[in-house]
């Protein structure tokens, strides 16, 4: 049985599964607020740390967390990544930067785009603020914030960032 023809290397099997995801009470509070242009966190009753977005139980102590805290739309970049490769469905021109941003008053970081800053000038400690979409376009989405951009204020010194991070890393 000499099968000399080329092997089949590709077949197409389109698969689509639809989900109606219910995000739960903690994230629902966050989504309702972001729709109004507000950012909510939640405070741990045991440690006083503020988590954003809110969750119902403390990562560290498992205690229920109920005290919602409104946070400003500005903070500090504590680490970042510059995207230099092209991939399927890419929306932005490379290179561009994503960062972990610790909002003022928060103890956990959110991830978002950082723009209006040449990537070679990106650095930890840079102070940034949110650039929002037109309020008419706001929905239940973190994409209501288009990106964060530098405020031009002095950086947080690197030693202070490391101290902050150590303090925040539950140690």
């Amino acid at each position: 049985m000499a099968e000399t023809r080329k092997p089949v290397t590709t077949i197409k099997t389109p698969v689509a599964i639809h989900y109606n995801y219910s995000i739960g009470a903690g994230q629902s509070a966050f989504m309702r607020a972001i729709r109004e242009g507000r950012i909510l966190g939640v405070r741990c009753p045991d440690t006083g740390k503020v988590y954003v977005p809110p969750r119902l139980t403390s990562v560290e102590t498992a205690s229920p967390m109920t005290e919602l805290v409104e946070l400003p739309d500005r903070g500090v970049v504590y680490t970042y990544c510059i995207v230099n490769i092209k991939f399927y469905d890419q929306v932005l021109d490379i290179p561009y930067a994503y960062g972990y941003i610790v909002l003022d008053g928060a103890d956990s970081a959110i991830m978002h785009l950082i723009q209006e800053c040449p990537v070679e000038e990106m650095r930890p400690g840079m102070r940034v603020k949110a650039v929002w979409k037109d309020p008419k376009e706001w929905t239940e989405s973190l994409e209501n914030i288009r990106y964060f951009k530098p405020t031009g204020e002095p950086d947080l010194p690197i030693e202070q960032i490391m101290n902050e991070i150590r303090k925040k890393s539950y140690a």
Partner: protein
Amino acid sequence: MREVAIVAFGQTPNRRKELHRNDAEMVAPVVAELLKGAGLSRRDVDFTCSGSSDFLAGYSFSWVMAIDALGAWPPIQESHVEGEAAWALYEAWVKMLFMDEIEVALVYGFGRQSMTSPRDVMVLMNDPYLETPLWPDAISQAALQARALLDAGLCTERDFAEIAVRNLRHAEGNPLAQLSGRPDPDELLKAPTIASPLRKHDCPPITDGACAVLLAAGDRARALCRRPAWIRGLAHRIDVQALGRRDLTHSVSARLAAEAAGAIGTPIDIAELHAPFTPQDWILQRELGIAKRTIVNPSGGIHQGNPMMATGLVRFGEVAARIIRGEADRGVAHATQGPCLQQNMVCVLEAE
């Protein structure tokens, strides 16, 4: 070999749709109550193992969010099985047999079927090249098995209906049940088929829920629980994946697992069978050698609620809870995953 027992069990009410809590938020109170009831803090748990499915959850690493809900800081020893949580119990049990440093283990599972179409999600378990493109959904596959049983003259559609009636009657005693009642089998048989020969009563309900089990070894188990449910035997086996290569009227893997667990030919007071469809209940009773005196599915089984990925572990919990409460001395818990009873796990639980 070390002795390991189930010392506590907890679960959420079985609900058609859990709108207000996500996966992690379903798990957190069940675990908190379980530990509180046992007089333990989360730091007393030496090993944690969970079972769930990202395919069902609709996002990747869904189990990591559930760990967050446990307060897993400082970092804990944990593991996860991507599937039915009974297999997470198996992993924890094996570790406890050989690792003296694990005295107490927490096992939990969760699933929310309401977010999607589970009969379609289950298609993705099949051979991705030859079977999945034909989209054999879970109910249709179970119907193939049911049809094979009928054509072999082994049982009737009325047998299937009577299994549903038995489960729903037992569910009347289960305060967490989603469905219960006393339907007339003749009335049930008048309903149209969903996938012939299966009717609605032959299929599991769609359920959101979570459950958790506490395992403890030796004297620690005796200290935590007046009447622990000792694991006397626990085994799992798997059949080939392709349905076309199996005799669907039998479940060889279920029989082998039952033999290995010591469930065959010994007195069994109660049995909880993880049979998603009524014909599978019939097959399992035969393969596990369930005697007439054994009460099958005292909780109401799958018909009272089917929180997929937790539902097999619920079977363990339901048997253990009855032993702990003194309502039974010896029981069998069964769990399955895969199409048409592909994988089967059998456990013999017993009082001291």
